[in-house]
């Protein structure tokens, strides 16, 4: 960075911003649960025999996805498509700022479990089972002379060094999110306020937590959430309880209002004061506060695939938004670059989208790594998240063929996502 000099750096940023186009960021999927809540108000009941006056944006989106995703996902596409077109599954992010014990009891009675804490237990069981099996067969391991070898109990007290990489996968602490088991379509009741007026949980796509978990926030980290609105992931970051300081930014003032509402509904005053909410263009961030943050989350605007095939309102596949949609990868790249520039050396960035498109996912990562190297002399290491994936593979349906990063696929038995995320370390 220093090698370029401030003039060079400004020029490089200017180059990036050459294609700066429309201002509007895309809406993320709505706050509340329940399918099709808004649609029916303006819905006209489509008669089967009549032709609709124009092709709905949802149909255009679906056609677009049929063409591109069938090539990418091949045999998996029919299942993913059906998942996108059916009611999505939610998780309940517990509000640690509200007394939780009665809520966890209530949820456990309904057979829901906290997937975050369950995951390592399941993996450990599998591995202990395997270890005990091996020892029992006495496969040439030298034990202390007791012919039996390791019992299951002894296997459980494996030292840190022996623990599998999967269990060592470091994730942001204190996040608890309840989900119903695979195949269980029970809905959560709406969130309820406690005696202090704070809501007990926040309903969201559980897959949205994965980028936050992958960020692995450590105590006193300065954290930047570059495209924070409407605020689900921001709230999750605050639930870790360890952010030294959290900067939550979003370009859209109306969506930032939602963010404020969420903070007010879930977070007590003294914690809210540690959050600075801004309404800037995220692309400016690198220039304004370069190299300030330990952890940066760049949850970019995207084609919001699930929303685009289900909701007509605010749909980026409307003809009049074609240019905006085509400019998305450029916008996403600019935002990621800004996020990288805002990271301290040694810090980490997680990039995420809720789209299946490689053009918005891997391609953006590849271009960013290249530009960081060639134009800013910043060396980026793309982190391997395969252990992270293994840890959560019981809850989510992951795509196994991602070149870079990880992709959660919608599937009827686990109808979360789409969610793409990739972790970068600034060297």
């Amino acid at each position, binding site marked *: 960075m220093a090698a370029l000099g401030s003039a060079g750096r400004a020029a490089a940023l200017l180059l990036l911003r050459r294609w700066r186009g429309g201002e509007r960021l895309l809406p993320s999927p709505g706050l509340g649960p329940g399918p099709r809540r808004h649609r029916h108000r303006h819905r006209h009941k489509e008669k*089967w*025999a009549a032709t609709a006056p124009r092709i709905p944006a949802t149909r255009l989106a679906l056609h677009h996805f049929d063409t591109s995703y*069938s090539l990418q996902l091949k045999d998996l596409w029919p299942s993913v498509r059906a998942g996108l077109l*059916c009611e999505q599954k939610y998780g309940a992010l517990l509000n640690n700022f509200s007394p939780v014990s009665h809520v966890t009891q209530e949820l456990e009675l309904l057979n829901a479990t906290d997937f975050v804490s369950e995951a390592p237990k399941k993996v450990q069981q599998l591995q202990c089972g395997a270890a005990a099996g091996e020892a029992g067969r006495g496969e040439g391991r030298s034990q202390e002379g007791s012919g039996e070898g390791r019992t299951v109990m002894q296997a459980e007290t494996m030292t840190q060094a022996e623990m599998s990489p999967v269990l060592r996968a470091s994730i942001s602490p204190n996040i608890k999110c309840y989900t119903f088991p695979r195949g269980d*379509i029970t809905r959560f009741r709406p969130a309820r306020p406690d005696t202090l007026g704070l809501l007990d949980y926040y309903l969201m796509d559980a897959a949205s937590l994965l980028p936050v978990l992958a960020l692995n926030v450590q105590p006193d980290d300065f954290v930047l959430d570059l495209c924070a609105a409407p605020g689900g992931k921001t709230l999750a970051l605050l639930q870790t309880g360890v952010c030294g300081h959290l900067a939550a930014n979003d370009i859209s003032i109306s969506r930032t209002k939602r963010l404020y509402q969420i903070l007010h509904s879930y977070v007590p005053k003294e914690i809210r004061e540690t959050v600075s909410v801004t309404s800037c263009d995220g692309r400016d961030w690198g220039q304004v506060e370069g190299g300030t943050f330990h952890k940066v989350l760049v949850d970019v605007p995207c084609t919001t695939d699930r929303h685009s095939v289900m909701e007509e309102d605010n749909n980026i596949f409307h003809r009049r938004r074609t240019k905006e949609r085509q400019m998305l990868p450029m916008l996403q790249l600019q935002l990621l670059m800004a996020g990288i520039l805002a990271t301290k050396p040694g810090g980490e960035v997680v990039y995420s989208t809720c789209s299946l498109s490689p053009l918005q996912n891997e391609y953006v990562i590849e271009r960013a790594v290249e530009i960081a190297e060639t134009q800013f002399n910043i060396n980026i290491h793309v982190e391997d998240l395969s252990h992270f994936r293994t840890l959560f593979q019981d809850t989510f349906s992951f795509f196994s063929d991602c070149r870079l990063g990880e992709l959660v696929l919608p599937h*009827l038995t686990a109808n979360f996502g789409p969610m793409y995320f990739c972790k970068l370390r600034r060297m």
Partner: protein
Amino acid sequence: MAGRLLRGCGEAAALRAMGFSEEQARRLLGLQPRLGPQRREAAAAQLLLLGLSAEAALGLLERSPGLLRMPTERLQERAGDLRRLGLGGGQLQRAVSRCPQLFTLPRRRMAAAVRLLREQCLFTAEQLREVLATCPAVLLEEPRRLHHHFQYAYFRMGVQQKEMVKARLFQMPFAELRNRHIFLERRGLYQTPHKGQTQTCNPKLKDILQLPEEDFLTSLASSTREEYEVFKKLLAREEEEEEDRDALYAEEDEDLDSEESKTAWE
């Protein structure tokens, strides 16, 4: 007491003469015991005349003892109606054996179903005949639901009458058809044809309806049972909520209208 015994013997003998075994006669006498012997014999005779075997006739009467109370003219008349619709000989036997209610169905209901199938669904007489032979229960269906079932296949699935008949559309309950169709549709494997489009690469209705569920899942839907089970639950819930919403908005519309025309729905 002796008189009753004597009567019993007399009845049994008459039934034996018609072709029922001793055991069968006994069973027959056990149905609706207070019924007069002529009624019993006449009803049994009618069924035998239709060509049913003694055992089949007996079985039918055991399942629907109400038939014994029907005047034989009615039984005859109904058999005639069904023959006129094209159910002859063995088809008629099979139809009434499977659906005894074909006899007890009120005339008006049956006529309404037939009218619907011919005039609204536009099945030819020949097609109607085949539908009745393969799915006689069609006549028992409430006409509105029958129409809905037909329209779904015609408009929503783009299937013509000829294919509906070949595929035995009405043999499968509507809910199951809808499950299979929408499952395929959401997976991208079935498309409602556009106006005027004659050729599609949709799977044949025959296959969709007649494959057992396992085969449907593996060869048509390329899916797992687990997925299909979850899908059915989700779809059922969607249906339920759709109906609730429609009902709610219907009420709202009524409120809006009430100012103008109170008498409309009174």
